[in-house]
């Protein structure tokens, strides 16, 4: 059975079902208990599972990350919420220096099965430091998996996989999509494998790669271009940024001979750069034109009155498609 729910409801449901399914799972974070989280991702869960398993922590991200590592080391499965991605930095050291390399340092003797959930991205007229896309900080760190859902269906399936994964997973939730639309989501538990991309629309003129909030932007731009010019773009939602789904990326580029990456993050050293390197390594000779990036800029996400100008828009993506195809 399925019904139409939003991404935030799908996320709540995934945690709810894992809490019910596995007594080792516990949630911790700021305002996640009585308040149900600032975005209501944990709404109703403290009532259902109690304050020992849905924990309102003190306001301390290093404390949350460090103690989650310890909980994970000692048999629990912590799912930690960080209120906004830009507030994660006090916990960054714990993630990078400890969570990501505990397995490595103990040669597999210990591991940290934790999930770090956090909303990210612009487009909600948020105050300063509520809109950043810094996923690249985490994809760069060996030992972390990085997952970004773009639909309610994917959010539930990916979060369940993340909670069941034996290694630390950064689960980045596009704030703009929390309540943007509903879609059919099965009531029962299901899993979407980490590391698998999703081909949303098949095509043969150009491969467009996107993740998170940019997926819908890319898809809409591709549909408009199809109507206006008859060009058929293949649109691929990466879903996992680490590990990347090399096979899907490369086979698509070999088919279309052109590629465009849409990335909300700053341009320099974003995940787009890595995708282009991958294509260079594996499919360079199939290319008919240079690979194009449509990205945010190398500036702090500006105050909200001009944040839309920072974001890759459908118009900018269409422009990028034209420049790639008419080369």
């Amino acid at each position, binding site marked *: 059975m399925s019904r139409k729910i939003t991404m935030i409801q799908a996320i709540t449901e995934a945690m709810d079902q894992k809490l019910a399914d596995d007594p080792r799972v516990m949630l911790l974070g700021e305002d996640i208990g009585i308040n149900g989280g600032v975005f209501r991702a944990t709404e109703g869960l403290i009532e259902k599972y109690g304050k020992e398993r849905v924990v309102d922590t003190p306001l301390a991200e290093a404390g949350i990350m460090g103690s989650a590592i310890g909980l994970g080391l000692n048999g629990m499965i912590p799912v930690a919420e960080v209120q906004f991605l*830009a507030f994660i930095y006090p916990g960054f050291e714990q993630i990078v220096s400890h969570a990501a390399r505990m397995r490595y340092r103990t040669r597999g003797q210990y591991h940290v099965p934790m999930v770090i959930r956090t909303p990210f991205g612009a487009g909600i007229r948020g105050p300063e430091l509520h809109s950043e896309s810094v996923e690249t900080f985490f994809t760069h760190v060996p030992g972390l998996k990085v997952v970004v859902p773009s639909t309610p269906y994917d959010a539930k399936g990916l979060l369940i996989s993340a909670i069941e994964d034996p290694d630390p997973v950064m689960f980045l939730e596009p704030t703009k999509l929390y309540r943007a639309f509903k879609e059919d989501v099965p009531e029962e538990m299901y899993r979407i494998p980490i590391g698998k991309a999703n081909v949303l629309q098949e095509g043969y003129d150009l491969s467009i790669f996107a993740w998170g909030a940019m997926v819908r932007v890319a898809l809409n731009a591709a549909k408009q271009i199809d109507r206006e010019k008859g060009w058929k773009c293949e649109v691929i939602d990466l879903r996992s940024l680490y590990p990347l789904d090399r096979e899907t990326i490369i086979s698509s580029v070999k088919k279309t001979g052109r590629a465009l990456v849409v990335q909300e993050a700053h341009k320099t050293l974003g995940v787009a750069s890595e995708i282009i390197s991958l294509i260079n390594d594996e499919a360079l000779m199939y290319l008919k034109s240079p690979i194009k990036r449509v990205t945010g800029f190398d500036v702090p996400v500006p105050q*909200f009155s001009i944040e839309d100008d920072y974001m890759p828009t459908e118009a900018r993506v269409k422009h990028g498609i034209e420049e790639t195809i008419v080369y």
Partner: protein
Amino acid sequence: MWMVTINGLTEQISQMKAITSSTGGNVMTDVYQVLTPQGELSVKGIEEKIDPATMVKMYENMVFVRAFDRKSVILQRQGRMGTYAPFEGQEASQVGSAMALTAGDWLFPTYRDHAASITHGQSLMRVFLYWMGHMEGSISPEGKNIMPPCVPIATQMVHAVGTAWASKVKGEKKVSLAYFGDGATSEGDFHEALNFAGVYKAPAIFFCQNNGFAISVPFELQSSSATIAQRALAYDIKGVRVDGNDIFAVWLTMKDAIERAHAGEGPTLIEAMTFRYGAHTTADDPKKYRDQEKLSQEWRNERDPITRLRIYLEKRNLWNQEKEEHLLKQTDVKIDQAVQEAEEYPKSKPEDMFKHVFAETPWMIQEQEQELKRFTDKGGDRA
């Protein structure tokens, strides 16, 4: 529903007792108060310490910032401003502390401390610009050192150590005042700031507005410390607990702290007990996590910072209804004018985002700006 029914903060406040000075008493438990909620002076000699003109100014400033705060909430509701963090209820803490400063002192406000910024000289128009999402909302006025509102938690405390340290190195008689809330005391930066300031005897003042809640989390869940002031003991710095709704107590405590800082005696940690009447921000619903109606009414009716000062001033014939009406009228005019100025201020333009990333803009940013410009010139829609 699982709900916090006992608010420890309220209990602590109701046990508040007058102590003779902010430097006396036991920092562990005593809350320094000189003006009771009933508008009575509970300590002798206050009239000699605070002159009548200052008392009147304190009142006028508090009325002014409260009107600003209410206007901001309305503007947000009308869609003329973004998410806003109201401070109503905390006026005595912010106005009283900022009034104790002199022009060159450094101010490190959080996103809830515009009352302090305005009192220290930030223009109302600029504060409105900030909350309207304008790129030029956090520029400090000439001759003042008002830092942009700090959005992460507790991080600004360490900056205040640095500016205070530099003042000491340069031999300037200036203090650095950092605001933060009860939640911030759980962050590592709180510890590091207090420790550094103690080591370097930095002329810094750490002003905690303990309003009992970090968004939804009550202080009982934030820490098992009985008080925040007691943390000072661990760093061997001065710690004081004060009634944050008593502007006289706040101001006198600040004056003490400044005097000690100037004398080379180092930092002070001030814990001001107060309460935010409203939501954490306009995006928050306090009814989810506390008995909002009851607590808010209780604090308004029994401990309001403005009411108690008005009662006191009227008793001393320093204030009357006529003055009140004049002040309210003046306040409305000033606020309306600032709103108008902010709304008529030239809007931020896309190219503004590329400025001031560096002193000299590197090629990547230059090219990206050109790319966006070419795109919009070609008739590409501005998002």
